[in-house]
C-alpha cells in the first residue's frame, strides 16, 4: 500500500464519500486509507472476543470485506452518521463471535444468539483479565467502550443498539463492582 495513507488528512466522512463516488483508483486509495487508519482498532476489538491472533486476523479481513460490500460499483453506498469506529465495532464483534462458533470452542446450540457470550472471555490479556475478569460480559464491554475507546454514552448506545438507560446502568454497576473488587479496589483508594 502506498505510504501516502499515513499523511492523508481527509476525514473518515470524506474518505467514505470518495469510496461512494470516486473512480476506481480514487476509491481504492480512500479505502486503503480507512483500512490503515482503523485496522489496529479492529484487531483490538477482535482480541476482546477471540482466542488467538489468527482468528483476530480473520476478523480483520471479514470486517473490511463487509465494509467493501457497502460500497457498490454504483448506487448510493454508505452514509456515515456517526464515528467510523461505531460502524466497525459491531461488525468486528459479530465476526469474532461467528469465528468463535466455528472454532467449536463453545457447545453448539440452535438457540445460541449472537449476543450470547461466555461467562468469561476466552482469552484476554492477563492484565485485563485480572482487572475485569469478574465483570459480566455486558458490563465489561460497556466499560471498554467508555474508558478505552472513549465513546460517549450515547455513542455506546448507538453502537450496541441498546437504550441509553441500559448503558448507564451497566456502566454504573460495572464501576461499582470494580470499586468493590480486591484486584481493582486499590485504584480507587489511592
Amino acid at each position, binding site marked *: 500500500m502506498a505510504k501516502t495513507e499515513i499523511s492523508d488528512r481527509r476525514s473518515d466522512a470524506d474518505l467514505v464519500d470518495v469510496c461512494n463516488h470516486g473512480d476506481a483508483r480514487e476509491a481504492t486509495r480512500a479505502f486503503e486509507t480507512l483500512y490503515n487508519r482503523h485496522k489496529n482498532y479492529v484487531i483490538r476489538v477482535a482480541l476482546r472476543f477471540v482466542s488467538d491472533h489468527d482468528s483476530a486476523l480473520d476478523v480483520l479481513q471479514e470486517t473490511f470485506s463487509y465494509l467493501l460490500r457497502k460500497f457498490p460499483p454504483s448506487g448510493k453506498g454508505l452514509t456515515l452518521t456517526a464515528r467510523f469506529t461505531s460502524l466497525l465495532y459491531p461488525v468486528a464483534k459479530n465476526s469474532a463471535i461467528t469465528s468463535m462458533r466455528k472454532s467449536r470452542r463453545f457447545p453448539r446450540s440452535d438457540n445460541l444468539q449472537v449476543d450470547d457470550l461466555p461467562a468469561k472471555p476466552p482469552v484476554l490479556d492477563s492484565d485485563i483479565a485480572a482487572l475485569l475478569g469478574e465483570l459480566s460480559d455486558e458490563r465489561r464491554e460497556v466499560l471498554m467502550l467508555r474508558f478505552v475507546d472513549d465513546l460517549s454514552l450515547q455513542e455506546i448506545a448507538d453502537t450496541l443498539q441498546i437504550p441509553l438507560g441500559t448503558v448507564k446502568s451497566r456502566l454504573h454497576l460495572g464501576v461499582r463492582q470494580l470499586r468493590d473488587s480486591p484486584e481493582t479496589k486499590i*485504584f480507587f483508594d489511592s
Partner: protein
Amino acid sequence: MTRDEQEYDDLPQDLIDQLKSADQPVSMITSRVDREISQLAEAHFSRRRQTVWSRHPAWAAVAATALLALLLVQLRGPQVDEHVPIYADLDNSGRIDIADVLYLARTRGAEQQQRAEIDAFAMRVVSLAPTGETS
C-alpha cells in the same frame, strides 16, 4: 462531557491507563495482510467504470459537440461557391465540358431550382464547340 456522563465516569485515571495499555495488540498485521486487503479493494472498485469524462461532464459535452460538428462538416463534403458563374471549369480539368456539369450536379444536390441551373449549364456546354476553353 455532560454532567450525566461525569456522574458515571468515575474510574480512576490510573486504572483507565492500565486498561488502555493492556488493550494494545502486539504487532500482528503483516504486510501480507495489508496486501490482501488492498487487492480485495482494487478488485472490488475495478468494476466501477468511471472515466475522466464522467467526472467532468461539462468538458465532455464540449468535446462531444466539437466532434459532432467536425463529423457534420466532413459528411457535407466540399461546397461549391455559389458565386462561381454557372459556366466554369469546376473540376479543374483544363476545359469546360459535360464533366463540369456532372460535378455541379453532384455538389449542388437535387433541389428544383438548382436543377434548372444545372440544365442551363448543360445546354451551354453542348451548344458550344467540342472543347470548351476555360476563360
